[in-house]
């Protein structure tokens, strides 16, 4: 499974549609404080099925929807999609072994989230399984949020073993 592109619209500070191309090797993401870099990390976790608003630094999941600025009004929904290249591997949810797969998640204010794979509505569970089978997911140990290394250092040995369970 290869990640190709992350697309955001109305997600946190990315009110206008935005595309992050994910190519092989190392892609750097830079910019001043508060410009939206960590929001991109959260968008990637969110589209892969994150169910906790706290992990999105919010009180409730609607907090990921663009809440407005002095010049723009708040939006009513947010959508993130990730384009994958399955390189011929069969997909667990019975989709044709089509190379290009798009997983998307949309949340409408007050009405919860809707997941789709190549346009077809699926359950959150299906999306979570799809990514778990590809050794990734919303809580992957290969996605490290800002300050998370500090918590790993401060954690008690018991709390660190969860890393080991992931490797098992």
């Amino acid at each position, binding site marked *: 499974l290869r990640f190709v592109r992350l697309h955001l619209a109305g997600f946190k500070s990315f009110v206008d549609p935005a595309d992050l191309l994910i190519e*092989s090797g190392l892609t750097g993401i830079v910019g001043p404080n508060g410009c939206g870099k960590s929001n*991109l990390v959260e968008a990637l976790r969110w589209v892969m099925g994150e169910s906790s608003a706290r992990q999105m630094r919010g009180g409730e999941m609607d907090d990921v929807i663009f809440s407005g600025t002095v010049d723009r009004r708040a939006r009513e929904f947010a959508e993130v999609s990730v384009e994958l290249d399955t390189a011929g591997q069969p997909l667990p949810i019975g989709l044709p072994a089509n190379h290009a797969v798009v997983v998307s998640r949309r949340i409408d204010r007050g009405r919860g989230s809707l997941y789709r794979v190549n346009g077809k509505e699926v359950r959150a569970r299906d999306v979570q399984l799809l990514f778990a089978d590809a050794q990734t997911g919303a809580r992957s140990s*290969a996605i490290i949020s800002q300050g998370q290394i500090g918590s790993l250092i401060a954690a008690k040995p018991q709390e660190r073993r969860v890393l080991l369970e992931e490797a098992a």
Partner: protein
Amino acid sequence: GRRRLMAAFTAADRHFRTLFTRLFGGGRAHLALADSENPLEAGLEIMASPPGKRLQALSLLSGGEQTLAALALVFAVFLCTPAPVCMLDEVDAPLDDANVDRFCALLTELAGVSGTRFLVVTHHRMTMARMDRLFGVTMAERGVSQLVSVDLARAEALADPA
């Protein structure tokens, strides 16, 4: 349960020893199961000695040394089951330039070995210079984020709007 976990521990520990020495440019370290004989209940402790120093628990290392040791652990676990994408958010903040250099060299090698795609959020100029490509996030309009592909010179200017 128990046998799988021990196998994971042994594999992670083997990777950890190598990665630690790579990241620190020397020294040695190992993982240890703490607080219980039973691997299903034990905690994970890091014992490390940076080059020329004595072996000690993670808590006695300096801020930068702790970050480097924690990164060695994260990548050791990663090597057990490489993920297709790895995203790191300012993990290089406490590192000095020599350690940033070794960290980036390791990323380049991991990308080559596993085919994993890395997304690295950073403020460090040296890390920016080691990337294959750069995206800038700007808020030209206050409170509204935009993504633009940038070159190194522009990235440095973005980091320094002064």
